[in-house]
């Protein structure tokens, strides 16, 4: 078994909700790397630094599909420790569906002989949470989603992934090659230090088109209705099949939250719960 080749796909997103959670920031808002993708870069760099994979890491490649400006987050990824980058450029405003991204990634995995893909579990703009799973399906690889801890077995093959589930920790074991998606508590991403920002400037970004990778970025989803302009989280109601059959998406507003209430003491709580028929 040779040293690990890791691919880390990253996405440039625009944070939508402001700090006070009262509005969506639009004009003048800086785009940044999807937070879950920062975790996957960090994890890849830690696998290298902590030598947690027995045969070491030979290369960490960052990948993005997005407008020219997305090069910024590739630089960030490289300042955090990725060795080089691949950029599939699209037009500003084009939304690329998860299946298309997964197909691009499959092509890159095959081209670059990657044996571990670490992705964010979802992006914070469309919250599809599908790319990693689709990619594993397309490649026929093992997958472990929402990882909170990743470790490797001494044989250089086995991978143990822990994930936080309701009521505890679930431990899964599989083997390379593999797709892992990162959850929030996987690690704490580092800040790109100034010397590393300078070093990243010398690292390479390779531009490549979807055609060159043999992938059609055409849309397969149709938006039926958008309710509300900005304030509501869009929700994917229907997913689509991996075979690429068309499916419909509805953007909907979640029901408004009811204000909570306070109770004086335990007795008050029990009375309240009885009122609600909970006990």
């Amino acid at each position, binding site marked *: 078994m040779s040293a690990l080749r890791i691919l880390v796909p990253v996405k440039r997103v625009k944070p939508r909700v402001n700090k006070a959670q009262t509005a969506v920031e639009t004009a003048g808002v800086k785009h940044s790397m999807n937070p879950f993708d920062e975790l996957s870069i960090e994890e890849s760099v830690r696998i290298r630094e902590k030598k947690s994979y027995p045969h070491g890491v030979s290369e960490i490649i960052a990948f993005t599909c997005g407008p020219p400006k997305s090069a910024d987050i590739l630089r960030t990824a490289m300042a955090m420790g990725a060795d080089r980058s691949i950029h599939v450029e699209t037009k500003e405003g084009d939304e690329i569906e998860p299946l298309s991204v997964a197909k691009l990634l499959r092509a890159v995995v095959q081209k670059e002989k990657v044996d571990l893909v670490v992705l964010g579990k979802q992006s914070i703009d469309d919250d599809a949470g599908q790319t990693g799973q689709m990619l594993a399906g397309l490649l026929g690889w093992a997958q472990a989603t929402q990882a909170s801890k990743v470790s490797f077995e001494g044989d250089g093959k086995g991978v143990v992934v822990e994930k936080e589930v309701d009521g505890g920790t679930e431990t899964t074991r599989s083997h390379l090659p593999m797709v892992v998606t990162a959850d929030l508590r996987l690690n704490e991403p580092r*800040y790109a230090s100034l010397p590393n920002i300078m070093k990243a400037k010398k690292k390479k970004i390779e531009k490549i088109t979807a055609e060159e990778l043999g992938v059609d970025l055409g849309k397969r989803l149709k938006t039926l209705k958008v309710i509300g302009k900005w304030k509501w989280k869009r929700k994917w109601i229907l997913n689509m099949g991996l075979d690429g059959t068309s499916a419909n998406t509805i953007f909907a507003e979640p029901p408004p939250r009811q204000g909570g209430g306070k109770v004086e003491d335990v007795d008050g709580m029990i009375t309240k719960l009885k009122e609600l028929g909970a006990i």
Partner: protein
Amino acid sequence: MSSIIKTLRPAVQRATAYTARPALRTAGVRRIGQQHARPLSSTARRRNEAVDISEVPPTPITHLSEIEVAMADSVSKFANDIIGPKVREMDENEAMDPTVVEQLFEQGLMGVEIPEEYGGAGMNFTAAIVGIEELARVDPSVSVMVDVHNTLVNTAVLRYGSTELKKKWLPRLATDTVGSFCLSEPISGSDAFALATKATKTDSGYKISGGKMWITNSVEANFFIVFANLDHSKGYKGITAFVVEKGTKGFSIAKKEKKLGIKASSTCVLNFDDVEIPKGNLLGEEGQGYKYAIALLNEGRIGIAAQMTGLALGAFENAAKYVWNDRKQFGQLVGDFQGMQHQIAQSYTEIAAARALVYNAARKKEAGEDFVQDAAMAKLYASQVAGRVSGLAIEWMGGMGFVREGIAEKMWRDSKIGAIYEGTSNIQLTTIAKLLKKQYSTS
């Protein structure tokens, strides 16, 4: 002037080539549309050579290079996540949290312009200015520590230090040693060259006796650049710069000042009681200290101006978010009243004007142009705007601005120092007027 620039050009080209970055040599029409339309920003020159920028396509003053943008992003994130939660506590305790200092080093913020071969980031001056501004948006105390360390101390060693001093100190200044710049004394502030601290030659080096006052970073620092007069009979031409390490016999911190603002930044009285230092600790040449001090402070002013615009912006944003999101009176957000909106608009315009002065001064310095008046104007105006905007911000926030939570009242207290250190506002006005008179006087 242009002929001077032309003769200097080959030298500049060599200097640029040395940085291994494609900057000025390729300047020309071809550059238009490239990411670095402002190539000056990516050069690592630090001498004041003039650069021919006649063929560089002009860009907006607010246009930053890729490195400067990355700097702003990284520092802004770091400042908000790491420093932000500690701001109030550090101010109340009147002390810098040592972990903050440690993390500033880890981030590379203490060696912005120090070349990579000495363990620094090897960035340009404007990148440092961007970083100082971003830090001040969150905490002007942390910002001034980084500012003094980078623009005064590191620059002094880089520019005037002997090879030995550079080899010994630059790697440490970039990674673990805070620096301090000791010029002011009880009897000399604005009249800096009236300083009384005396240096005498000894067999092995020099002996310094006297005292310094209002010395920034002195608690955290291990490395002090000390100005002392080697020959009082020569007046200011006797002033010489020396390097003194903390722990040298006879060197002591006499008193830590309690201040109105930037409380987390240490300011102390220092005593030099026959402090003996070796020959190698002479910084630059004997009797040249006054020139170094003038040159460094001229540049340093741009840093303070950046600190002040950062402060103004931080105070503004804090208040604007409050009045436009949280506070409602008479059934509407207070920020929606016209009386408020006009003040907010006026304030932001002033901040933008101050920033334009700051960035223009920084770019002129990088281009090797004369920037003395620009730096003075930037510092003067930025500190005025900082005082005005941070004061108004308190009023916009009402009770929430007046309480010692949040950062509103702190920003206003911190703004006061802007009109005082690294040249008072009156000294800036005098400098500006002197240069204007030179320009307009016919005799």
